[in-house]
């Protein structure tokens, strides 16, 4: 069976045969990884855009894009080309430096969070020992990009959107952190590969009892809020603030925000899949049996992407069903419900972990 890590290893061997200089080798490898990464990210955001529109369409009893390409699959490409040909405007009264820097910040922070995600066994850009902490800290930098975008636009809608976003993201950071910690307590490691390995005999959501289930639900809710998607899209609430923090952005700069949003969606779902649903681990029940062997034949990255896209679908499902919350309700939900519940939940998880009551 071919695995992604084998392919990576083969490339590495081939390259080390051709290039003897150590530094040069690693730079070449990095360049290859970078190019593949960029390509796959663009493909990913195209796919997510297409998926979102199709999911929305089917939930809204309509067909969705079906003109460009087979079943409309190239619609999103056409839209990107359109955005490419659009003039990028900068408002006269804006703070031009910050205004133009914000899209870069958004894209770069999103790129950085990609690093520790484990796609398959041994296939990871950077298997750092502080993986979970790294993700939760770097992803919160994106709020700075949004604040910069909103404030520098010198537009009242943008400012309101950015301020809302600030209050919202920092609040939900706490719940996300606490629900991540619940898993860290159970595994005792922040390293992504360790967390995945610890679920070899069963995913945490199955063997962690109700506390992990609660942590999972909180994680999904909080991460929906963290990436500014409906019903928590107050930062860009189009019926209130027209487009919120990116009202003034057009053309490619706007596309960068869109791209960042989709990649962020992927990242939080990948995190959820890794921590709660076992990452690239196949579905196993009990000890050695035929079912487990059958599951083993499905490659790891299929498992990983399957779980991730399932979570993405759930978050899209939220978006196309629920109305938006109001800002005070949003913060109420966090400070009155999610935060206390997840704080108590941590205690329960600790008890389970320490006494070894999990399966």
């Amino acid at each position, binding site marked *: 069976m071919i695995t992604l890590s084998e392919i990576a290893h083969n490339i590495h061997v081939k390259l080390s045969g051709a290039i003897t200089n150590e530094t040069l080798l690693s730079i070449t490898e990095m360049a290859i990884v970078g190019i593949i990464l960029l390509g796959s990210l663009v493909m990913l955001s195209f796919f997510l855009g297409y998926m979102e529109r199709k999911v*929305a369409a089917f*939930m*809204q*009893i*309509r067909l969705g894009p079906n003109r460009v390409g087979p079943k409309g699959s190239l619609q999103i490409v056409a839209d990107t080309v359109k955005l490419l040909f659009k003039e990028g405007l900068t408002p006269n009264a804006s703070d031009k430096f910050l205004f133009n820097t914000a899209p870069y910040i958004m894209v770069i922070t999103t790129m950085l969070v990609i690093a520790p995600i484990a796609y398959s066994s041994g296939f990871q850009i950077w298997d750092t020992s502080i993986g979970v902490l790294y993700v939760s800290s770097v992803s919160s930098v994106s709020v700075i990009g949004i604040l910069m975008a909103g404030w520098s636009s010198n537009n*009242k*809608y943008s400012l*309101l959107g950015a301020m*809302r976003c600030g209050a919202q993201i920092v609040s939900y950071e706490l719940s996300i952190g606490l629900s991540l910690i619940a898993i860290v307590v159970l595994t005792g490691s922040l390293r992504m590969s360790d967390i995945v390995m610890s679920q070899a005999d069963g995913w945490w959501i199955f063997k962690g009892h109700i506390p992990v289930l609660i942590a999972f639900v909180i994680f999904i809710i909080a991460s929906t809020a963290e990436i500014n998607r*409906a*019903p928590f*899209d*107050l930062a860009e*609430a*189009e*019926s*209130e*603030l*027209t487009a919120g923090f990116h009202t003034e952005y057009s053309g490619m700069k706007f596309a960068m925000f869109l791209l960042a949003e989709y990649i962020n969606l992927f990242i939080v779902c990948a995190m959820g899949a890794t921590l709660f649903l076992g990452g690239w681990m196949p579905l196993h029940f009990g000890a050695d049996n035929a079912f487990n062997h059958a599951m083993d034949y499905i490659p790891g990255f299929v498992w990983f992407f399957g779980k991730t896209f399932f979570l993405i679908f759930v978050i899209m499902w939220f978006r*196309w*069903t*629920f*109305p*938006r*919350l*109001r*800002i*005070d*309700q949003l913060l109420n939900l966090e400070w009155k419900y999610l935060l206390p519940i997840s704080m108590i939940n941590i205690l329960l998880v600790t008890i389970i972990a320490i006494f070894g009551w999990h399966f």
Partner: protein
Amino acid sequence: MIEHNLLEPDMITEDGDFVINIGPQHPSTHGVLHLKVWLDGETVKKVEPHLGYIHRSIEKMCESLSYRQYIFSTSRMDYLSAHINNQACALAVEMGLGVEVPDRAKVIRTILAELTRLASHALWWGCMGLDLGAVTPFFYAFREREFINDIMEETCGARLTQNFIVPGGLMADIHPNFVPKTKELIKMFRANIDEYNQLLTGNVIFQQRTQNVGFLSKEAAISYGTSGPVARASGVSCDVRKHYPYDAYDRVQFKEILGTTGDSWERYVIRIDEMRESLSIIEQLIDNIPEGDIVAKTKQVIKLPKGEFYSRVETARGELGVLLVSDGGSTPYRVKFRSPNFSNLSALGHIAKGSKIGDLVAMMATLDLVIPDVDR
């Protein structure tokens, strides 16, 4: 002398306030309403509607149109209740002429008016969801609305501005498909109102968003001259169909649904219930359309006697009054449309005070404003 001062003392607005213009080109103003909003953080301190972006002076136009023609310019006022607007204008002319409309025409007019109301409320429900950030309701609502429009198209020849009414009756008889299709609609719509409730009414986020915001007390509702579901939500019994029945409303049984608190939620629920009432009105009439003429004989050139004639109907948004001032000629001397939206909008500044900016949008949605009717 009693001062009917319903407003709490104005919140102080200062030069340094955060003044934001919502509209005329804003996704949630459904047209070209322009609200100037004074904000304190997220809290609305003051709202001032600026009108006139699509003022067409229909009243002035009507002064140069004949009594047959002026009916049709009113389809463009409240374009979601076009048929009901036509009805109001025709009623005024009929009142002036003293013509008795044939029974068949009366019943068909009433059925069409209720269908219009259903279509209008369906659209409102979709937009209500849209304004609160849920996009899906819009499409569900349009499914029903399109079905009604198809019925309208078959009988009247047009989907939105039906122009089916002439003074004294109707332009043509109903299409053979009208009755079976309407029955089908009743069945389908009943089931879909349950879907509406499942998707939006029962949703906890939606309830939280609309309950306890946008209060309009009974006194304020009366003083601001609000009508229709907006006033009924505050407990004002003002249904024209009930109190001043016209056409075939005196021969049907229906409830006038009254609220108590007058918040956004109440305004929402009342419209949902009203849809059910409309369905029951149609159900009562659809099997009992009397045979007979569809139009009373009138002269080709209609001349009204000198005087004033005021007719009123209940549109989907409230009481539409038509004041015809005639000098005995073949054109109206003056036409005044008492539009429900105009009065309902004037209450917005009152109810929005002190709320959040997100609720302002919800309130506008529950007022169900149609801006061309405000501006006329």
